[in-house]
Structures are given as C-alpha cells and as structure tokens.
C-alpha cells in the first residue's frame, strides 16, 4: 500500500498541473486496476464489461454489483474474467455483494503478494480534487479528474455527488484522492459532468464483513440485504410525519422525507377539457438494480383529482373509470423474477366515513426472494356525482407486514375536505 501513496506537497489550481498529477497517479495505480468482463459461456464472447480495482494483497477486487449481476444470478451462464493493464486475462470468483449499494467483491488467484489500493479513512472535503479511474467503452484505462460535492441530499442510500464524466464502462472503477486513497466507487452518471459514487465506507464495511463472516451463498446474502433495506425504508416512511395536502377538494397524504420528491400538474389551462384533472405524484428517485430487466425498491404515490364541470354523472363516471383501468407497477420485472399479479377489490369506506372508494390491491411474489413482494394499490372515490379522487401507490420489494402497514396508513389518510 505504501508503495502506492504519492505524496504531493502542493496542490495547484493550474489545469496543466492537475493533468500531470492525474497521469502520475494513473501510472502508479495501473497494475491494480482491472477490466472486469462477463463472458457468455455458450458463445465465448464477452457480454458486459466494467472496471474493478484490487483492495487486498491476496487478490480481492472491488467492482460494481451491476457489472457482475449476470454471474451472480446465472452462474452457469457466465464466466467472470479480469483483464489487467498488461493484457493478461484470468478467472475470477465471486466472494460477496452489496446489492443495495451496488458493490461486489471478486477474487483472482495470485502467486505472490500484490500491490493494492488503500481505502481512505476519512471523507473528502467539499471541493476537493478527485480522480475517477476506469475503462469506458472498452478503450483502455483512463483517468477523469473531478470535484467532490458532498453527499446527494435526496438519496436514501448515501451517494457522493461527483462533478466529472463518469461514463458507463467506468462502473466499478475507483475514485481516489490526491493521496491515491479510494474515497468512492464509480456507479452512475446523471448526464453531463454529474456523476454519483458509492462512498468508501460502504466498501470498507463489505470488505471487513467478508473477512469476519463470509456469505453462505450470494443469493442468501442478497435476500438478507434486500429484506433489511426494505425494512429500513418502509420504517422510515411509516415513522416520518405524513402531511395532508389539498388536491382540489380532496386531502391526500405526502410523506415529509427528503428522499421522496413530489411533482404536480393539471389541465386547468385547457379551455376545451371537459373534465378538470389535477395530478400530484411523489416518488423515491432511486431504485435497486438486481438485473438489467429487474429492479426493485421503487416507491410511487400518485393522486388525481377530477372535477366533472358540467358533465352528467353517468358520462363523468364512464370516462373516470377509464383512468382507473390501467394501473401498472413502478419497477421492471420479467417472468423469471416475479409471479403475475393477484388482486383483491372491494368497496371500502374508512371508519371516519370521510370517503367511499372502490379499492383494488394487487401483489406479486419474487421467485428468487420469496419473502419479498411488489404491491400495487389503486382506489377511486364513488361518493360524489361530479368529483372524483384517484389514489394510487406502488411499493417494490417489500415484505408482507411492511406492505400492509403502509396500505392501511395510506387508505386511512385519504379523505374529502
């Protein structure tokens, strides 16, 4: 580790110096950087690539979970391979994953002790120059300088906000400070010059846990992580203050937490609209990646207030019914991942009799993680001739108790003024 640490006495704001510094860092760290590839066993060709970096002398390599998710879910279909800076290839084995923070630790065979990246002990300071390393577009290792901008505020799971171009293939690559210590792992890009990183503490925790208590199976480890995360998330939602927000003549609940963000819209400006529609929706703006066709941990709440204006009730209700027919889930999933939805529907009135609704509750089970479900709820008011309120939510990857506690609280929070 010591061999790696580059002591830089002066930090300069000159761009030329920054580039020089970046080159210096890259030269020293290159042997511990890898391209991680998933090879499709049947065709022998690579099906996805990402970056990785060594974090121990005995060959443990950190990368993103999403880089190796194919192998984690279908180990018989893929092989994991590394490619080092000299073009040498070798086989990798999967040791541990953190599906929530998108981290994975894989291992290569080593004959002798090797150099590796040190994980930082402390957080960077705002504005600190950082260097993102990786392998975008299969073009070879590159270094991207950028700036640390603190943690992303609206995120439930901590993410570092990094100003610099984190490209797709750089996923799993390290982000180091000037002392060449890892402060984060590249994970996502959100357009030009804005990237997100997994903070180094998450990697540190996973690394330590692997040494103390290695997972029995990866699937079980993922299952436990998903359960713990949904428990934490739903608990945070249920214990945070629920606020009653006016939508037309209706009162709908919103949850006062920074990671749920709400948006609104209406057709009030449209003169020819025969029904006034006011929409508000609140979502959790992140989700958990399980595979390219399956994600979870999404939360959506959506409300629509309708005013019939001069329409006769029969026509109003006929049009309003079309709005309730097509509720869909907030997350992607395929037949391998989930069952089809099963639904229950009824006419429901809360004890305080503030609203009478037609309510539909649907759920589907996760085939790989049988304690988890996606749930979907939609209800439409049926007690006013000229007004209606549609209330809808979806929760992905939750346990039965969490789902039902949320459903009950949600249903009781909807009312007319």
């Amino acid at each position, binding site marked *: 580790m010591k061999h790696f640490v580059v002591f830089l006495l002066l930090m300069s704001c000159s761009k030329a110096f920054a580039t020089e510094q970046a080159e210096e860092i890259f030269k020293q760290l290159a042997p511990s950087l890898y391209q991680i590839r998933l090879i499709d066993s049947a065709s022998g060709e690579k099906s996805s690539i990402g970056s990785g970096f060594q974090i121990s002398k005995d060959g443990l390599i950190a990368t993103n979970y999403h880089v190796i998710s194919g192998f984690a879910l279908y180990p018989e279909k893929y092989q994991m391979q590394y490619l080092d800076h000299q073009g040498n290839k070798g086989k990798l084995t999967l040791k541990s994953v953190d599906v929530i923070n998108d981290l994975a630790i894989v291992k290569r065979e080593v004959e002798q002790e090797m150099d590796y990246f040190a994980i930082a002990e402390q957080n960077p300071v705002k504005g600190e120059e950082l260097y993102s390393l990786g392998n975008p577009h299969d073009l070879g290792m590159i270094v991207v300088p950028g700036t640390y901008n603190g943690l992303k505020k609206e995120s439930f799971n901590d993410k570092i906000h990094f100003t610099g171009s984190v490209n797709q293939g750089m996923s799993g690559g390290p982000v180091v400070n000037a002392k060449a210590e890892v402060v984060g792992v590249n994970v996502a890009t959100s357009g030009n010059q804005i990237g997100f990183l997994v903070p180094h503490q998450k990697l540190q925790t996973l690394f330590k846990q692997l040494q103390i208590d290695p997972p029995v199976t990866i699937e079980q480890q993922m299952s436990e992580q998903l359960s713990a995360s949904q428990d934490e998330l739903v608990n945070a939602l249920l214990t945070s203050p629920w606020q009653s927000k006016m939508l037309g003549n209706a009162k709908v609940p919103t949850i006062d937490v920074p990671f749920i963000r709400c948006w609104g819209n209406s057709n009030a400006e449209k003169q020819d609209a025969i029904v006034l529609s006011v929409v508000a929706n609140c979502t959790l703006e992140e989700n958990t990646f399980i595979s390219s066709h399956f994600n979870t941990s999404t939360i959506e709440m959506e409300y629509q207030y309708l005013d019939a204006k001069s329409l006769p009730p029969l026509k109003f209700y006929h049009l309003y019914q079309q709005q309730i027919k097509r509720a869909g889930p907030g997350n992607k999933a395929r037949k391998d991942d989930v069952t089809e939805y099963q639904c229950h529907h009824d006419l429901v*009135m809360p004890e305080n009799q503030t609203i009478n609704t037609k309510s539909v509750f649907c759920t589907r*089970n996760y085939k790989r993680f049988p304690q988890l479900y996606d749930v979907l709820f939609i209800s439409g008011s049926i007690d006013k001739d000229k007004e209606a309120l549609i209330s809808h939510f979806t929760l992905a990857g939750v346990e039965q108790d969490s789902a039902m506690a949320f459903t009950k609280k949600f249903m009781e929070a909807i009312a007319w003024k």
Partner: protein
Amino acid sequence: MEIIVEQLTRGHKLISRDKFSNGEVNIGRAYSNDIIVSDPHVCPVHLQISFDGNAWIAQDKASINGSVIEQSNQPVHNHVIESGDIICFGKTMIRLIFPNHAIAKTIPFSPFEDLVDFARQPLIMACNILVFLAIAAWISYINKPIEVTWQHVAAPAIGMTLGFLSWPIVVSLVSHFTKNDARVMYQIGICFIFFNLFVLSSVLESIVYFNTSAHWSIAHLVVVLPISLAFGLFWLNCYIGFHMTAVRRFVTAGVLTTLLFGGSALVQLSKQPEFSPLPSYDATIMVPTLQFSSSSSVDDFVEQSQALFEQTRKQSEQEKE
C-alpha cells in the same frame, strides 16, 4: 283406386304433388304423358304406373337410363308399389303415396308464435329500433372525452343500428335461399328486442359486479345471462326462418352460441401473453346512486388482501418447480 305422385328434388324437397284416380299414370318427356318431366336423361316414354285391380305396379318402359327403387336399389320391373316408395330415373325422383298413408301429428301453435307475431307489429318494431338507436347514440356520447354535438353521435348511432340490422337480414336471406319463407320483418322484430335485452343484461352485469365486488364467485354467474339471451335469439331465428325438428333447432342454436362465446373466448385467450407484468383487475365503478351494497372497512379490506400473499407465494413455488 287413387295414388299420389310427388316430384322431389335430389335433396328430397317437394316440388309438386298430384293425385291420380284413373288407374294408370304415364311419366316421361313426351307431351302425351300424365306427368311431363323436362330432365334430358329421361326417355319420352319412361315409366308407367298402373293399377291391376289388386295393387299398383311400376314398370320401366325399356328406357335408356333405366329406373330404380331408391330404398332397395332394384331396377323397376313389374315392381309392386308400397306407399312411400321413391323411384329414381334420369336425374328425377318421385315418391308414390297411397291416400291412407300415415301422416305426422298436427303441431299446435307454440307460445312463441304469439311472441313472434307481437314482435312483428310495426309499432312494436319501430319502438324497439328507436330504443336501440337511442342506446347506440348514448354509448357513442359517453365514450367521447370531448364536447359533443348531436351530429357527433347521430352518425355512429345510425351506423351501429344498420350494422346490427345486417344479422336478421342475413338470416332471412339464408332461409330464402334454402326454400324457406324469408319472414324478414319477423326476424328484424325479434332481433331488435333481443339486442335491447343484451344491453339491459350488460348494465345488470355491471351493477352486480360493482356491488358484489368482494364476492367474485357469485358475481360470475351473471355471465349466464348474455349466453342464454344469445341462445334464445338463435333459437328464435331458427324457429322463424326454417322448418326443422325441435332437436335440430336446439342443436343449431347451441352450436351458434358456442361459436359466438367460445370463439371470442378463444380469441382473447390467444391474445393473452405468456406473462403479463400488468395486473388485471375489475375496475367497474358506477355513480353513487347505483351502489346498493354497503362498503367494507379498511381493516376488512386489508385483512382480505392478506390472503393474496400466500396465493402468490404458492404460485411462485409451483412455477419454480
């Protein structure tokens, strides 16, 4: 002694019927015959039927193409006729019947006859078509999510009514071409009564679904209503337009009903994807005045929804196997 000679088509449909009492009937193409046939395969003097004082005897007059008894397939040569014998010659067929031949019992007018007559009355028919037109206009009115004028709804309503009019007309045409009485007005009268009943049954169905939402199994029995209406319509179409036995009418109506409902069920089934990521549920909602049942409490709803978790989990286990 008298004999009745019926000329038949190859499908045994009656063309003409004549009674002879002079003890001899000559049949052939020549104008000297008692029965003159225009079939070119028949000889000018082809067949003779004569009464010998005891029995009627059929005799082929050495014709080119011969004559045979249909029942026994024997050539006609001094054949002693029994009532009901069918003789084929050339491409012509005759049935020979004695006056004492047994006949079927008289069929009394069924109560449907009254219904059919009622439906055919111009006033009733006009009322039914107008009601249907009004329903069609209402449907196109409530389906349009924009401001509508009467022109917006008149055209689709008339189009829909004309479309539905094609069914009784098709049935009448079929019965006309099968040598039955077309009875167009009767068919139209009955069809529009049933079309209106279909609309009524679908409204009833929605009300039942809306009010019994928590009790699916019972509500599904309402499907019987449109199926029995369709059966009733097809049965009456057959009754009005075709001479057929009760069993045959029953089977025909049954087959048409099965084709209609089974066919549409099959089409829906074939469209269903192997896996749907979207939930399918009953979204029927109706205006407050049509709610007759009481609403459940949130606790009951939550409690009943709990069962779904167990169901999907079992389904998941089954599919994994």
